[in-house]
């Protein structure tokens, strides 16, 4: 122990040095404590207070995020003993996560289903803040330890959120989620342990891990990598780790599902980028394990499974769940190019998707609140009763399908462009197949997305009673999201600076 003492001051210096790069996260952890304390102090009535504190805190965090751009002028920066890495993409992802989180935190209360919880929502806010903190870590993790830690933190928080509302299907969803999630993380951990054993290091960028892996039998390495990817796949919900998604999204409260399908996914993509970067740029590693091919196949399968299975759904939430699987597949397509363009395309795609998806979940809540509409067929003729909501729903679904003039179209467009550009470089047949699958599944996706406008506007209903009112802010925020999506559809270059 003593022989390590000389290193201690250096270590401490490093930690203090890292704190400047860790400001948003520190704010977040403080925020977590404040919200927790508020919750404890004010007990049941503290919901609105917690919300205000949480949102204000997140706004502050966003401000801190923005400040970090200054730090990046000198390029990416490792800190905390090479545990974390702050770089452009991760920062952007963090920003997006925080911004969306504010919206989602506000949204929690607007969902009547969740809001009717006897204990109030105050706990949920602290849990979400913890989850957001973990997501920040995910986007920056470059060490297998930090990877595992952040993933697990997000998972635990998510389990709680899914099972938060004890009644209804929530607990069933929670059980399934926790069992599936724990098993996946166990598998991932086993994979990590093997990687550690083969490579002799946990540091992805440290320069020891990869050469170590190159020396081991490729099959064993592949085995370990596949086990590891299973863990990330659980968060991203790509095939074959997607089985939990429909059940959990349907069973969980709508805002939680929105949370899981948007910010968690973005963070997981951030993590995947971090994890893959060293492998992609390490020469000859594709001989051992071709991530590009592997992810292409996964992407194709995911797109097909998600979109095709969605065509048969009648439950709105379940349909959105399947569609989010499909979108993961599409986003993987942008990722597998591993180019700068691909990354920016991925970012844009994820933002557009997350916005539209959040809006869609909000509308699912809205129609559940007002008309008790759980199934698509319950929406019959409601478009005439709620024209604004109906029109917004159409816009959002158009964006999710990827038709002009919406942000979703540019997302698809940029993704296709980046894959095309990559194809032009290396003539990889997998990329071509990805694009074709992407195009085909776009058509298929229309098939189920359109069933919502179909019911909203094309069908008539005799129903005249049983309508309740909903929080007007819900509709307002949906309308703002819709306008934003159309605006981004017209002038996308504002977002992609």
């Amino acid at each position: 122990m003593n022989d390590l003492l000389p290193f201690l001051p250096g270590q401490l210096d490093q930690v203090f040095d890292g704190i400047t790069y860790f400001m948003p996260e520190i704010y977040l952890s403080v925020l977590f404590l404040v919200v927790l304390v508020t919750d404890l102090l004010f007990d049941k009535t503290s919901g609105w207070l917690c919300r205000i504190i949480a949102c204000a805190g997140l706004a502050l965090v966003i401000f801190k995020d923005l400040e970090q751009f200054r730090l990046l002028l000198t390029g990416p920066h490792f800190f905390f003993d090479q545990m974390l890495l702050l770089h452009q993409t991760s920062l952007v992802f963090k920003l997006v996560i925080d911004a969306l989180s504010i919206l989602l935190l506000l949204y929690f209360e607007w969902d009547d289903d969740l809001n009717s919880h006897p204990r109030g929502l105050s706990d949920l806010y602290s849990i979400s803040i913890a989850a957001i903190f973990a997501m920040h870590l995910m986007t920056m993790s470059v060490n297998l330890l930090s990877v595992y830690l952040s993933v697990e933190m997000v998972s635990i928080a998510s389990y709680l959120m899914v099972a938060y509302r004890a009644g209804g299907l929530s607990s069933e969803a929670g059980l399934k989620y926790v069992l599936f999630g724990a098993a996946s993380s166990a598998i991932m951990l086993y994979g990590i342990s093997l990687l550690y054993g083969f490579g002799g290091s946990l540091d992805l960028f440290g320069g020891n891990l990869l050469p170590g892996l190159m020396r081991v039998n490729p099959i064993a390495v592949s085995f370990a990598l596949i086990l590891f990817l299973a863990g990330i796949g659980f968060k991203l919900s790509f095939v074959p780790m997607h089985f939990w998604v429909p059940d959990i999204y349907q069973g969980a409260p709508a805002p939680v599902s929105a949370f899981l399908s948007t910010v968690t996914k973005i963070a997981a993509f951030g993590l995947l980028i971090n994890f893959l970067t060293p492998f992609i740029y390490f020469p000859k590693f594709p001989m051992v394990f071709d991530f590009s091919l592997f992810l292409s196949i996964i992407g194709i399968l995911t797109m097909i499974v998600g979109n095709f299975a969605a065509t048969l759904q009648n439950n709105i939430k379940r349909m959105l769940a399947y569609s989010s699987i499909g979108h993961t597949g599409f986003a993987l397509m942008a990722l597998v190019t591993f180019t700068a363009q691909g990354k920016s395309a991925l970012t844009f795609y994820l933002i557009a998707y997350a916005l539209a998806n959040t809006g869609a979940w909000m509308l699912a809540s809205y129609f559940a609140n007002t008309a008790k509409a759980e199934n698509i067929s319950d929406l019959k003729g409601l478009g005439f009763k709620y024209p604004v909501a109906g029109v917004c729903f159409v816009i959002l679904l158009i964006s999710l399908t990827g038709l002009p003039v919406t942000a979703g179209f540019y997302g698809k467009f940029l993704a296709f462009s980046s894959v095309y550009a990559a194809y032009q470089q290396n003539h990889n047949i997998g990329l071509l197949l990805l694009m074709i699958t992407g195009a085909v599944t776009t058509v298929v996706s229309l098939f189920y997305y359109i069933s919502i406008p179909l019911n909203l506007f094309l069908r008539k209903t005799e129903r005249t009673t049983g309508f309740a009112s909903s929080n007007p802010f819900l509709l307002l925020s949906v309308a703002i999201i819709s306008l934003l999506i159309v605006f981004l559809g017209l002038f996308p270059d504002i977002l992609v600076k």
Partner: protein
Amino acid sequence: MIPLSDFLIVSAGLFCTGLYIILSKHNAIQILIGIELMLNAAVLNLVAFGKFDRLNNGGQLFALFAIVLAAATTAVALAIILNVYKKYKTIDPGKIDELRD
């Protein structure tokens, strides 16, 4: 000195046992135990490999974190299982399938 391969074999055995349990048992708590076994297999690996990583002690460190997180997960899982039991009066995951296609 026990060779590394023995550790690996034991951990692989643990992992497989865990896998078998989570696939075959009809009790959520048993499944949790299976998951624990799998985690422990990994932890065993980490510690065994950590022996060769003298400088950072990464493996041991990781093992500690893993154990803590496993405990946290288990706590959450048990709470959820309790909730489920209240509602369904069973904790056989195979019987809880209201959410399905």
